């Protein structure tokens, strides 16, 4: 492996490690749940990303191409926002009242705090399949 490749991989690992560390430190330092949520969803994306790029560069320097890192990145980008949204929603359900939040600008409340029976929109329940009793 050439010196340049080794330097590049080392730099990526250090960057990844630094951002991972900052993300974890943010969890300790930030004052409450909603601000803490920002540290792991953001800072650690680049932390994991740096390590994955280093792994790909390492495989390339060895003369083989590895696709797993791309898949990990893809799955991470799909799951991180959803996990974050779930944590935020459960925090809202337990601790927030409509008075704490900006108005929605319409008759309905924010979905987590909306206790009415009226259907929410967009309506995501699949329509019944034709030819089947529902």
């Amino acid at each position, binding site marked *: 492996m050439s010196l340049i490749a080794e330097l590049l991989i080392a730099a990526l690992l250090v960057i990844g490690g630094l*951002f991972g560390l*900052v*993300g974890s*430190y*943010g969890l300790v*330092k*930030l*004052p409450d749940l*909603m*601000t803490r*949520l*920002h*540290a792991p*969803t*953001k*800072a650690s*994306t*680049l932390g994991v990303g740096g390590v994955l790029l280093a792994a790909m560069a390492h495989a390339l320097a060895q003369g083989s191409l*590895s*696709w*797993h890192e*791309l*898949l990990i990145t893809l799955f991470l*980008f*799909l799951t*991180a*926002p*959803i996990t*974050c*949204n779930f944590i*935020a*929603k459960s*925090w*809202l359900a337990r601790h927030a009242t409509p008075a*704490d*939040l*900006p*108005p*929605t*600008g*319409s*008759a*309905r*409340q*924010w*979905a*987590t705090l*909306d206790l*009415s029976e*009226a259907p*929410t*929109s*967009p309506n*995501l329940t*699949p*329509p019944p*399949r034709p030819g089947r009793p529902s």
Partner: protein
Amino acid sequence: MMLRKLLPHPGLSVLLILTWLMLVNEFKWGSLVLATLLAIILPLLTAPYWPNRPLIKSWPAVAEYVVIVLWDIVKSNITVALIVLFRPAAKLNPLWVRVPLDVTSPEAITVLAGTITMTPGTVTADLSADGRSLLIHCLDATDADAVRDDIKSRYEARLKRIFA
């Protein structure tokens, strides 16, 4: 017509084949056969859960969006890291922001919500029950209108061009 029945969701089928081959991590004809089988069976099984398939209007717009979001994720990591390291917690100014939505399709709203979470100092917390606005939490912001306008012009305008 027959092909349409066998492959109700061609995009999903292509995605499944690519994902399977990437999981195998090298090209083998056997894997391609298995991937093709999965790409036929899985969309057929899950078709009822895709009542309205998202229609992508413009693929160049998708590529542009991906590049912009990746760049913003890198920027957002640095911004948030700097705030975590150098800003005293007492001086933070967390802020709730309402973003009224112009996009209506569930797919576009989901992509927008995910993008907001991944980009500078903002996290999507909730959607209004009528699906017309998003609730955003900012780590450190003073001007709610500026945050809202930035999200609408930078991401939502592009999503409107992507999703039919």
